[in-house]
Every structure is written in C-alpha cells, then in structure tokens.
C-alpha cells in the first residue's frame, strides 16, 4: 500500500503528557475524485510511564482480535509487551474505518496499516532521542520500550521521550521489520483478556447495565410472519417487578435495507429484573394468527427435489462440453447431497442495552456490525448520526449471527417507547427460534471419469432458498443479483475441463443468514465428498486424486481474486504426511481427507474414523492450516482446533421448520459438541511470509467431508444427507 500523504499520521501531545498518535488503517479508499483518502482508525497512546495503550477498532467475539491486532503494533513499535494495554473503540468509522467483524477480515485489512503505524511511532521516538542527544538517528536503536545509543551507552524510555516524539515531523512510509527481526509476531502470546475471564470480571453485552435500566423479555410471534390478534396483559402487569408491556409491531418498523432484518412481531415485558420479565411474559395471554402450514423445511426440500428435474434457473459457469465429456466417459457418477439449516447457538444469547432520549441514543451492543447498528438506530429514532453512540461489546460468540442487528432494533424501539434505558434479553428458546440459520441446500452432482482415470466432467447444481434473497440484497446497477450461495469460481472450477455450475433460487419466508464460513460450510462438504466419490469410481487413492487435480497449477482465479493451487496442494500433503496416510490401520478404521481454500486460508484435514453400530467414532483429526504470516501462534492453533470441533458438531445438528415454526428450542434438540465427543486435533501450522489472513473460518468447511469420507472407507456407507444421526464418540 503506497502511503504518500503527510496526513497519514497525526502526532500530538496527549493530555497529561506523553504521545498521542492517531493513525490510519485499512480505510484507505478513493474518493469521488479518485484521490486516495486515508481515514484514521486507531489511537496509540504512550504515557510518560511508557505504558502503551492501543484502541482496538474491531469488536471481540472469541477470534482473539484484541490481542492479535495489538501484537502487530507492539512489534513494530518495539515496546515491551508487558507495557501494552488495550481499549475497545466506540463506533467512529470516520476515525477507524471499517469496524465490522466477519469474513475473517480483521487481520487481512489491518496488517499493513498497523505495521506502518507502529513503525512510524518508533521512528518518532528515535528522532526525538537523536535530537536530544545530538547524535545521528542511524546510531540509535530501540529495544523493548527504550531507545539506545550504543556508542555512548545512553538510553531513554519511550515514556521519557514520548512528549518530545509527539512534536516530531514524520514522513511515511516507514520500513516495517523483516520476518527475521520479529520478536512478537509469530510467537505464542497469551490472550490479554484471559485474566479477566478466569476471575469473572470480563464483561459481555449481557453484563452491561446502567442505573434505571429495565430488563425486557419479548414474547415473539410463535410462527413465521404471525400477527398479534389480541393481548391480555392484566395478569402480567400484576407480576411483582413488571413495569410495562409494549408491542413490537414489525409493520411499523422502517425497512433497514440489506443485511439488516427487522425483528419479529412481539410483545415485550419490561421489568426491574430479568426473572420478573420472564414471569411476566409467562403471564401474558396472547392470541396470534394461525401458522402457515405450508412453511416447512420438509416442503422446501420437496420443492427442491421437484425443481431439480427442471432446467436450472441460472448457469454461472460453462467450461468445455459436458455432454461430450459424459458421452466419452468411462464412469459417470450421480449424487444428490442435502444439508440442513444450522443455528449459530452462540453461548451468550442475543441481547442489547439501549438508552434513547429525544436528543440522543446510546447503545451497548454485542454486535459484529456496529455500523449497521447505528443505521438501525438512526432509522428508528430519526436522530442524526452524531447523536447516536454505539459501544460495541464483547460477544459470547458471533459466528455470523451477530452481524444482524434485529436485537438492537428491539432495544432501541423499546427504550424509545418506554422513555427509559432498556436491556433486551433473549432466552435460549428465543435465540434458537428467531435466528437466521445457515441456509439448507439441495445439491445435484454429476461427474465423470475418463479412460485415464481422471475427472473429466463436473456438474454442480445447487437449489436453495438463499440468504441474499432473504436479506434483501440489491443487484449492482445493470447486473443481476447473485445471492451468493454458489460461485462461478467454486472448486474445482478451472481444474476439470468440462464443468458446469448452476443455481436455482427457491422462495421461502424461512429466515436464513450467514454462518461461520458461510456458503463454504455447505458447499465444501458437498464438493470434497463428491470428489471422494469420483476418486473411488476411478479406483484411485483419495489423497492422490486430490493432489493430481492441483498438480502443475498455479494461480487459480477465484471470487474476484485468486488462490494458489500450490498452497492448497501443500496443506493436503502436510496433513497426509502428519497423519501417516497410507500406513495400515486396524480393521474397521479408515482415513478420509478433504481440504479447501476458504476466507483467505488453506486448510486440509485428515480424519481417522471407525464405523460402529449407531456410533460415529472419530479417532483422530490431523489438520494443516496455512493462513499466511502467523500472528499469534497460540491463537491460530486454538482457532483451528475450535473450528474443527465446531464443524464436527454439525454432523448431528439441524434446524427444521414445521407448521410455520422452528422446531428446535434448546440444547436438548440442537446439541453442541461435548467434551466427551471431542477428538484430539493435531495442528500443523504452515509457516510462510505471505500476507496474513484470519483463521476463524478456514478450518471449518473441510471437516465434515474429511470425516464422512473416512466413514465411507470404514463402512461402505456414503453420507450424502446431513444431519447424520449416529452419536459421536471418540473412543
């Protein structure tokens, strides 16, 4: 990134002495005149005591971004890690640029600008010291928060130099450290928030509270689109602690636009504490319109099956000649794969605290998209942006659910009506029933093997109700809206000569949205499983079949950019070697392999599975993961392990809709993986100097195909429909 504007960086004195550095991240974009515009998005403060305070612009949901972003700055600044403190930024896109979290984008976006900021701050300290000591800057160096002049033995701490450094003029860019010079980045660094977590002091959105706030629990429409017909709140208002009953009428809520779904119709009970609100809700007598029995996942699936025999609505890609390829094939394989809706099931249920007055709205939102939260508040209150304050809160899990601000709309709307601060809390049942689950999918696959045992034809037709249609995505001007469920570059496009990718959208009012790894979470399962089917049809080893596919290939166009076939091959090879692929296994046990490029990261898994009666025994999972430059080694490893186990849980999960309503309500019918079911996950992190990407999503998608491919080898049973309802064991 070329930095050629002097106002990239602004240094000033901090109140109380010290240095206040405002610098510019990621938000460099071109303005209407095509000029590069830098927007400031972080503050680095060095106190006279040498304490370094970094404001983190992106909210935390367990991906470790608070620590990893701090590490990048601290590395280039060359301060002592023990001097670093972090603060969470409020929403201020003019200052911080993008502040959403999702798509594994934080490190990818912030890496370069953060390095620059740290390096420039370090330079200002060197300049200040050199001036003070009247020596050449080239004779000074830094080490752990001190500037040193070797020749004379002089040194000064950053704290001592900070104020002088704040008066230095700086010209960007600075040269960041080379990989060999790094002391922090690439190491295993303990997450900065752990001491607060283990002592119970860490605060999540659900824990925020202000004086006078009412707790609100909402009785929402019991079926999709149901309307309130009548309400009797007499008994409810008699429950001790209940203060008010207010309606949430979706019809009166303005449309929030793309990716900003409105909340469901509901009746809110506001009380002085949560339990009273829950008891009050139980005491409501509500009559709702009848459920729409035609709205069900069973019917959606039947519709998909029926439509799959008709021509696809859209052909996204047509390579070579699939008909000719099929005619000359040695083997043709047909398969239908089905995947269900999946809930996010964050441990912390949805909630939000809002204080809305006539002049101001202040919102404590555990949200992945604080910018959209402000849009919601602006549309509901009519207040200007500068009268709306968003405090993004730590989230007890996001996984994509918290990208949608329906719970913010509820809190803002209720606070506005109640004339008091309101903290909306969802119960687990509310959360399970009123989410935006990962879309279901009906996948029709046809593939062929030629006379040389190579895959010669690949046809993939996906039919589903997309998240794009539900979330009101708009088409770019003059173009058709692609709802994002499958892409024209999806694997193995570019690798098989005769290839067709098609999509047919289905209509449904069932809510759906983005889940961890988004469409890859479904499509990679289908694609990597079907490749295994083709390998089997060709009589070839699954690993070799995958490696041959990528053999000799370099950059493959993908999603407006590219991925590196060599790096994808490499993770297959590393996982296979580490797992001992090809070594004999006891009877009944087998290995499966799958890999993908997803969200900037290359990951392959080898699973060792035993097929037992009614039991799916996962003996071992070996993962190779390449996210480019590794920032926090401990963080990267735990994201791979956590992502693998998160994905494994989906083997047995589904959200179904019957008679217009979500069936599942709590962890008994949407089971999370338990510790007894968690296999060891051996992780090999690939070390290289490619630009860093996130590790939150990459590991997720190849897990299910790896375990299901192994299950096939062990049992002869091909799992094409999820969930697979055998219990999961590890021994």
């Amino acid at each position, binding site marked *: 990134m070329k930095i050629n504007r002097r106002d990239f960086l602004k240094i000033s004195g901090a109140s109380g002495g010290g240095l206040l550095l405002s610098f510019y991240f990621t938000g460099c974009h071109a303005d209407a005149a095509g000029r590069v515009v830098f927007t400031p998005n972080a503050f680095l403060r060095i106190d006279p005591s040498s304490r370094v305070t970094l404001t983190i612009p992106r909210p935390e949901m367990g991906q470790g971004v608070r620590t990893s972003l701090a590490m990048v700055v601290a590395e280039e600044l060359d301060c002592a890690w023990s001097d670093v403190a972090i603060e969470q930024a409020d929403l201020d896109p003019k200052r911080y640029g993008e502040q959403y979290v999702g798509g594994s984008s934080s490190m990818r976006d912030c890496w370069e600008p953060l390095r620059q900021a740290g390096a420039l701050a370090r330079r200002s300290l060197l300049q200040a010291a050199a001036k003070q000591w009247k020596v050449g800057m080239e004779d000074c160096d830094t080490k752990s928060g001190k500037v040193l002049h070797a020749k004379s033995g002089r040194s000064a701490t950053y704290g001592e130099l900070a104020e002088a450094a704040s008066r230095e003029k700086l010209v960007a860019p600075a040269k960041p450290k080379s990989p060999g010079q790094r002391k922090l980045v690439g190491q295993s660094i303990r997450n900065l928030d752990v001491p607060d977590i283990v002592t119970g002091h860490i605060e999540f959105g659900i824990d925020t509270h202000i004086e006078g706030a009412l*707790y609100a629990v909402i009785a929402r429409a019991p079926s999709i689109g149901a309307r309130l017909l009548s309400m009797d709140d007499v008994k409810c208002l008699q429950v001790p602690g209940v203060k008010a009953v207010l309606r949430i009428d979706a019809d009166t809520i303005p449309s929030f636009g793309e990716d900003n779904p409105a909340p469901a119709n509901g009746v809110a009970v506001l009380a002085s504490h949560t339990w009273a609100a829950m008891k009050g809700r139980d005491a409501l007598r509500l009559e709702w319109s009848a459920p729409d029995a035609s709205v069900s996942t069973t019917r959606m699936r039947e519709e998909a099956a029926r439509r799959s025999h008709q021509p696809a609505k859209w052909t996204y890609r047509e390579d070579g000649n699939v008909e000719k390829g099929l005619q000359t094939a040695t083997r043709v394989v047909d398969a239908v794969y089905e995947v269900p809706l999946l809930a996010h099931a964050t441990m912390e249920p949805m909630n939000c605290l809002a204080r809305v007055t006539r002049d101001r709205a202040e919102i404590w939102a555990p949200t992945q998209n604080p910018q959209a939260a402000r849009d919601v508040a602006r549309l509901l209150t009519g207040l200007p942006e500068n009268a709306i304050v968003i405090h993004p809160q730590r989230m007890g899990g996001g996984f994509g659910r918290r990208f949608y601000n329906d719970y913010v709309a509820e809190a803002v709307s209720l606070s506005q009506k109640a004339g008091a601060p309101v903290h909306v809390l969802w119960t687990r049942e509310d959360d399970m029933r009123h989410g935006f689950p990962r879309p279901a999918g009906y996948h029709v696959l046809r593939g062929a093997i030629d006379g040389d045992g190579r895959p010669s034809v690949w046809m993939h037709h996906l039919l589903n109700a997309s998240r794009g249609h539900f979330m009101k995505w708009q088409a770019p001007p003059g173009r058709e809206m692609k709802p994002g469920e499958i892409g024209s570059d999806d694997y193995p496009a570019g690798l098989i000569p005769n290839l067709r990718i098609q999509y047919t959208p289905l209509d449904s009012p069932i809510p759906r949205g983005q889940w961890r790894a988004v469409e890859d979470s479904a499509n990679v399962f289908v694609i990597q499983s079907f490749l295994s089917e083709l390998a089997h049809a060709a009589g070839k080893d699954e690993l070799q079949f995958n490696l041959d596919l990528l053999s000799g290939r370099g950059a493959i166009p993908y999603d407006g950019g590219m991925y590196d076939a060599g790096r994808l091959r490499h993770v297959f090879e590393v996982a296979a070697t580490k797992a001992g692929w090809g070594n004999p296994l006891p009877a009944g046990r087998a290995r499966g392999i799958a890999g993908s490029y997803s969200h900037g990261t290359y990951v392959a898994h080898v699973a060792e599975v035993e097929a037992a009666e009614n039991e799916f025994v996962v003996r071992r999972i070996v993962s190779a993961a390449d996210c480019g430059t590794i920032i926090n080694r401990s963080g990267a490893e735990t994201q791979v392990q956590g992502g693998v186990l998160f994905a494994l849980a989906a083997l047995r999960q589904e959200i179904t809709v019957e008679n217009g309503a979500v069936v599942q309500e709590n962890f008994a019918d949407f089971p999370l993986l338990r510790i007894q079911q*968690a296999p060891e996950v051996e992780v090999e992190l690939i070390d290289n100097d490619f630009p860093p990407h996130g590790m939150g999503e990459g590991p997720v998608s190849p897990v299910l195909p790896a375990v299901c491919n192994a299950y096939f080898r062990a049992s002869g049973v091909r799992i094409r429909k999820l969930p697979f309802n055998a219990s999961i064991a590890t021994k």
Partner: protein
Amino acid sequence: MRLNINNRDYEVDAPPAMPLLWVLRDLLHLRGTKFGCGRGLCGACTVHVDGSPIRSCVATAGSVKNQKITTIEGLSGAQLHPVQQAWIEVDVPQCGYCQAGQLMTAAWLIDNKPESTDQEIEEVMNGNLCRCSTYIRIRKAIHQAARIARDRKK
C-alpha cells in the same frame, strides 16, 4: 432472605422461587455467572453450593438460603485457584462466555478428585458446553491445574 455468597452475607429481597442465577446477576450485580440456557443444560451458570457444583439457573434462591455459595468472583483466595492459573498458562478461553462455569466445575474436580482419570474428568466436565469448543485446552488445563495443586501442597 439472607444468602451467604463468597463468605459474605447478603440481605436480598427475592421470591424463594427465583433462580439463584438472577439473584446473583440482577439483584447483587455479581455478573460473572452467566445465563446460557435456563434449563441446566449448558453449565454456564455453575456455582458452588457447600462446595459442590450446581446449576444456578434452576436452583432457586430459597433452596440455597442456608448454604455457602461460591461464585467465580470468589474462587480465588489469596492467590488464584489452580484452575484459574492453569487456564491462563494454557491460554484456554476464546470468547470466554462459558468459562466461568467450566472453571467452577473444574475447581470442584481439582479440590475433590485430583487423581481423576481422563475418563472421569470428561464425565464430570461433560455438562459444561463450549460453542467455541475449547475442549482440547480445557483437558490440558485440568491436568496442569492438578500439577499446580500438587506443587502448592509441597
């Protein structure tokens, strides 16, 4: 009613049927104990009553009023409990929401059954769910905590 929490007596005005979880969070502002499911299915709400782990989202205030209650805020004494120290050393949490519950259950294990086998550890911990799925490090940290506890006794 009077509740004894973390060695302190609190006078609370709560209906006896109110779950202890909400007394802790909303009336006493002890928010370290978390709400996850409301049905005792996930373990996020785990506290100790007379030294044993219970699910505070289903245990009523009335049922514990004559007992000693310990929450995550009271787990450390003069120093961190071995599980807290181990959790830091092993870098266990991701989002952290379930971890208070995990720690309370693990603390009971270390204090009462430090010689547990892996199978016994998992049986005890199996009721504490983690969506981020930090189970691999939880296992490691429990072993580490047992080592720390043994070393402290020396």
